[in-house]
């Protein structure tokens, strides 16, 4: 293996080092938090693009931490799905870091924010690169605990309440995951994910695996806010500062919930027909219930949070259908949702920054005062509701087509219904916030500073041209590598086990 493999631990080292350096010096040196926050996320994004190039060259790379060979030591694995997730997470993180430089001046201790932000990013990157199931749990907890503190960052009554609720629910989810890992370890005597899959293939099915699957669906379902487990999300996501709402809705629930479901069910335990239909049902319920609940909201960020639940439903539905086309749609929707949902949350943050409220009953006509925020939010709206030619249209189209192709007509119908519900909810949000006449009391509003506009415009551009990722040449580089990992999971096993 080449020296290029040394890039894999970088994704954990850089954010953790950044976090502790900010924590040690940020109180005195005011510029350090901004500087290190933006620099490390920018570096991570470039490294993620480089990792994508490596994946196209070598297909799969395995790193043994401390030169201990897996399955005894911890393995870090870089394959198509990992590179795809790393690019998504670090792209959104970079945009949010740039945005936070100005936005977080509202709050008194920006260095604490950037410390927790980078810790959370380190946890997410760790979840994505690790090839060891207990290591995955540890990184999951790092990211989750950092996010509890970030939800409570404003330390007002409702924020503390939301953070407490979130901490309780999320810890319950972690407990299910830990129990699942313990049972799996007891059954297979190994913690390396590829090795677990190999042992399971040898030992055959067992009721313990059924129990473990259920525990993982509950645990990771709680993390990714599928509908029966969603109650924490509409409180936690709007209560956090806007950049963190964008981070939580944009990438945290995906890397902690969706990615882990993809990896563990796709590559380790395997998707049985029962699990696939459970995931499809959960996906459909999430889509429709999330959509209906979103329409009734009057708080801008709360509406966006409910629609996140709805969009998670699409991703899980795509995975549950299980054909290569639906997995492609599902992963593409994951990327698109990361981009446009963080765009929308940052837009809501810009509205709150300029006007001081996010109650839609008090807003209106902001398009005339804040053209950049207005336009980018409308682009995000059109993308999330599936208006062509924006990226969200293509990914929803693929999921619906794949559902029809696989003979799953009802999920396809529900997906279309949910899309209409999303459009309704977002038209309401846009009408009440940006269109119409300027409300009394909002005449003196001015557009947000340049750095915030920069993030909004970049994300809007990405979601506008996101459909281009489906052009065959580009699709092979980015999306198909990730789909390949899910559809040919035997390759993952063989490649990782070669290093044992």
């Amino acid at each position, binding site marked *: 293996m080449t020296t290029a493999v*040394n890039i894999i631990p970088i994704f954990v080292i850089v954010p*953790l080092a950044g976090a502790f*350096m900010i924590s040690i010096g940020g109180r005195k040196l005011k510029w350090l938090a901004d500087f290190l926050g933006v620099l490390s996320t920018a570096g991570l994004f470039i490294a993620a693009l480089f990792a994508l190039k490596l994946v196209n060259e070598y297909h799969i790379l395995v790193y*043994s*931490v*401390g*030169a201990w060979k897996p399955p005894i030591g911890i393995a870090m694995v870089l394959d198509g799905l990992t590179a795809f997730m790393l690019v998504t997470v670090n792209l959104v993180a970079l945009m949010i870091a740039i945005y936070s430089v100005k936005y977080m001046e509202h709050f*008194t*201790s920006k260095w604490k924010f950037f410390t927790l932000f980078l810790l959370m990013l380190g946890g997410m990157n760790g979840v994505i690169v690790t090839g060891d199931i207990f290591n995955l749990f540890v990184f999951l907890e790092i990211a989750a605990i950092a996010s509890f503190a970030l939800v409570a960052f404003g330390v007002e009554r409702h924020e503390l309440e939301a953070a407490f609720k979130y901490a309780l629910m999320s810890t319950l989810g972690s407990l299910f995951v830990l129990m699942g890992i313990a049972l799996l370890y007891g059954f297979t005597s190994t913690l390396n994910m590829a090795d677990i899959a190999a042992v399971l293939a040898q030992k055959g099915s067992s009721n313990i695996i059924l129990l473990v699957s259920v525990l993982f669906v509950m645990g990771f379902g709680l993390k990714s806010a599928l509908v029966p487990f969603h109650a924490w999300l509409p409180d936690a996501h709007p209560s956090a500062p806007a950049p963190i709402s964008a981070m939580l809705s944009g990438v945290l629930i995906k890397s902690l919930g969706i990615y882990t479901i993809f990896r563990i069910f796709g590559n380790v335990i395997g998707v049985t027909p029962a699990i696939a239909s459970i995931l499809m049902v959960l996906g459909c319920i999430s889509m429709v219930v999330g959509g209906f609940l979103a329409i009734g909201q009057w708080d801008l960020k709360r509406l966006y949070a409910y629609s996140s639940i709805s969009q998670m439903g699409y991703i899980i539905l795509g995975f549950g259908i299980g054909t290569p086309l639906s997995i492609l749609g599902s992963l593409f929707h994951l990327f698109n949702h990361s981009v446009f949902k963080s765009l929308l949350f940052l837009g809501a943050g810009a509205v709150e920054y300029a006007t001081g409220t996010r109650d839609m009953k008090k807003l209106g006509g902001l398009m005339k005062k804040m053209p950049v925020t207005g336009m980018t939010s409308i682009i995000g709206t059109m993308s999330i509701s599936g208006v062509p030619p924006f990226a969200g249209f293509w990914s929803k189209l693929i999921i619906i087509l794949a559902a029809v192709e696989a003979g799953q007509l009802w999920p396809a119908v529900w997906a279309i219904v949910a899309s209409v519900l999303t459009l309704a909810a977002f038209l309401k949000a846009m009408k009440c916030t940006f269109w119409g006449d300027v409300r009394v009391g909002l005449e003196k509003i001015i557009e947000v500073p340049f750095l915030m506009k920069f993030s909004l415009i970049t994300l809007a551009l990405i979601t506008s041209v996101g459909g281009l990722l489906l052009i065959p040449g580009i699709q092979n580089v980015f999306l198909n590598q990730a789909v390949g990992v899910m559809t040919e999971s035997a390759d993952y096993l063989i490649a990782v086990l070669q290093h044992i």
Partner: protein
Amino acid sequence: MSSKERQTGMSVIVRTTARLTVGFILLYGIYILSHGHVSPGGGFAGGVIIALSFINLMLAYGKDTALSKLPKAVTSFFENLGALILLSIALLGFTGGYFFLNFIAKGEPFHLFSAGTIPLLNLAISLKVGAGIFAIFVAFVLLKYEPEKNKKE
């Protein structure tokens, strides 16, 4: 208990016992920490015991005495330092080609000076854990609930 007594801590019996035992508890923590690689224990357990010696001081003498020995800023500094030392040792492993590689000579098994980087990692962990647990305790002690109002800090 009057307010004056609360400032100086608990009764004479508790304070005297604490004064006599605090040093031993600290020493025992350092022992557990430094022998982590040859006997049960290690950085986490050693760090917790070291933190407990300061917490004991705080329980017996009140928060002012303990915080004058180990101020909040110093606690926070040591916590971050622990994490950074751990990360630096892990990064130095790259000199041998691998992250977290044990790159120092391993020495004789079961001797105090053996096991390469493990004792150093234990030291870093004990700084992080000890300072962390003390900081959490201090946070609970200093926490004041002011109903409604008040923004950050």
